[in-house]
């Protein structure tokens, strides 16, 4: 079930991950991200990097936006965190383990009677381990740098079978 794909965008490229769980879909999308830069099979698992993304903190007035939007912001944070690690460590990653935390209350300033469990006042952070190695131009012949994840085509959804699909366009 778990897999990833690229899809076309006129200027750039879309990444899409599929999985039985949200975590699995997030990890698959991360493979799609690396595959923009290099062939995944060339990237050996030599180093481990820990990555964490805090829960998205929506402004209080955006509380109506819902869990779906929280998940989408978390997905953008995740991809952007990977882009940052790839850029500053000059690494490529080819394996990911993703955990998305249990809902928890964020920011006491948002505490209000309407914020009951499951409502948007509660949200989830992400922690992950990414495995890979330093970029070696000869070995990986990296094609292109990724600049950022965008909000274009951004989706974190469950299909009718309960499987997760996550996607966005990235700027290269």
């Amino acid at each position, binding site marked *: 079930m778990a897999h990833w794909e690229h899809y*076309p965008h006129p200027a750039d490229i879309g990444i899409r991950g599929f999985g039985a769980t949200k975590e699995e879909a997030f990890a698959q999308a991360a493979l799609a991200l690396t595959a923009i830069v290099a062939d995944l099979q060339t990237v050996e698992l030599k180093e481990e990097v820990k990555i964490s993304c805090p829960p998205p903190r929506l402004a209080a007035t955006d509380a109506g936006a819902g869990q779906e939007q929280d998940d989408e912001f978390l997905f953008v944070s995740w991809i952007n965190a990977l882009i940052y690690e790839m850029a500053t460590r000059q690494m490529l990653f080819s394996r990911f383990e993703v955990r998305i935390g249990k809902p928890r209350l964020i920011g006491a300033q948002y505490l209000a009677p309407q914020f009951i469990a499951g409502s948007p006042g509660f949200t989830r952070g992400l922690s992950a381990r990414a495995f890979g190695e330093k970029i070696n131009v000869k070995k990986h*012949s990296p094609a292109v740098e990724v600049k950022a994840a965008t909000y274009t085509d951004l989706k974190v959804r469950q299909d009718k079978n309960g499987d997760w699909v996550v996607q966005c366009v990235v700027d290269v």
Partner: protein
Amino acid sequence: MYANKLKRHSECQWHIEPFDNMRVPVIIFADEKLIKMMDEKVFEQAVNVTKLPGIVKASYAMPDAHWGYGFPIGGVAGFDPEQGGVVSAGGVGFDISCGVRALRTGLIVGDIEPQKNRLADLLARRIPAGVGSRGKLKLSRREMDDMLVGGAQWAVERGYGTPADLEHTEEHGRMTGAEPRYVSDQAKKRQEEEVGTLGSGNHYLEVQKVTEIYEAACAEAFGLHQDDILVGIHCGSRGLGHQIGTDFLARMVKEARSHGIELPERELACALIKSELGRQYIGAMNCGMNCAIANRQVLTHLIRQVFAEIWPKSKLALLYDVSHNTCKLEEHVVDGNKRNLYVHRKGATRAFGPGHPLLPADLRAVGQPVLIGGTMGTASYILVGTEKNMSLSFGSCCHGAGRAMSRTQATKKWQGRDVIRTLAEQGIIVRGASTRGVAEEAPGAYKDVDEVVDATERAELAKKVAKLEPIVCVKG
């Protein structure tokens, strides 16, 4: 559907009159062929821009416009801070101040031809390009902040160029209003070793020859003659700019509603110019602009060293440096009144007409050089801004050919090695770190730059001065 709302206003101008909650019309500059090729998304995105608060006159799209993020690529919009206007991180993009710089080499085709392989090899070796490349400068945090405030002036003070370079760079090489304290640690970290690097994707370094002169007097003023050799650099603010875009887009998306702004699309995320977030973004974005022009200045220095190695007497003079992903405070006349507007140009080039006070003294009488980057196999153009355009689109113009095909389609259609071989047969040497990267940038993946520039001229956005064709192209 938006395409059926297009009304032809003149040969190269198409309008969408306001409907629903549009505040102003959409104006698209294109000929019939280009408008038919344009993605429906361009019209939709240009319409979305008209819904943002404080927009003045119209939301514009240039002849090379294609589907972007929030704003179309090739989109222009001005906002009035006194009328609740906004600044949009999406309207500037992730590659803040990406732009083109043109250098005159003083050499002619006959000088280059016998040496072009050696030149290509040296440039490819000395200019850090592509994924995993690092610049020769490693900046401490203090030096980083100095660079973010000083721009190309900072680079010249450190010996990477001359005062004459600054005179021929937008903003005299230094964007005022840069506030490094609003640039995140992550953004600075991403830039530590990226000063003086070309990047990848559509960025390039080209050695070009003048193959056609259109406006003799103007070409003379720009110092351009048939068969002259120029160097073109296309790149931007590197990791720092990308991270500033990422950081502020996220904040603007989350805070827009609390500022009373309804976003037609998340990527249009913006903040009131007169808000704390708006001020912070402008301060950070100005740092991004300085980073981009400092970067192109350091690259210029490296290129001069390579040329000096082969032609010890060569002197590379800067013709001009102009960015095409910007938001700048500019004075424009609107309905007879002078107003200060924040003009966003997303994949659009500033193109100021003759007499504009911001132009270099020696070019003020002729108008601003407008640098249009082509693709590896086609052509680049140098245009000149017109007086007329100051009232057409705030003095803005196209920025390149504009993609016609996605990267995924391009890599299915072409092999990098074949692209390199075909271009070599045409006398164009391509040096690229990655063959797939070359395939993604194949000339056939772009619109015809000649058509885009012709439509730009017929729309009176700018006039053609010279056509340049590549001899050597270094890709990331």
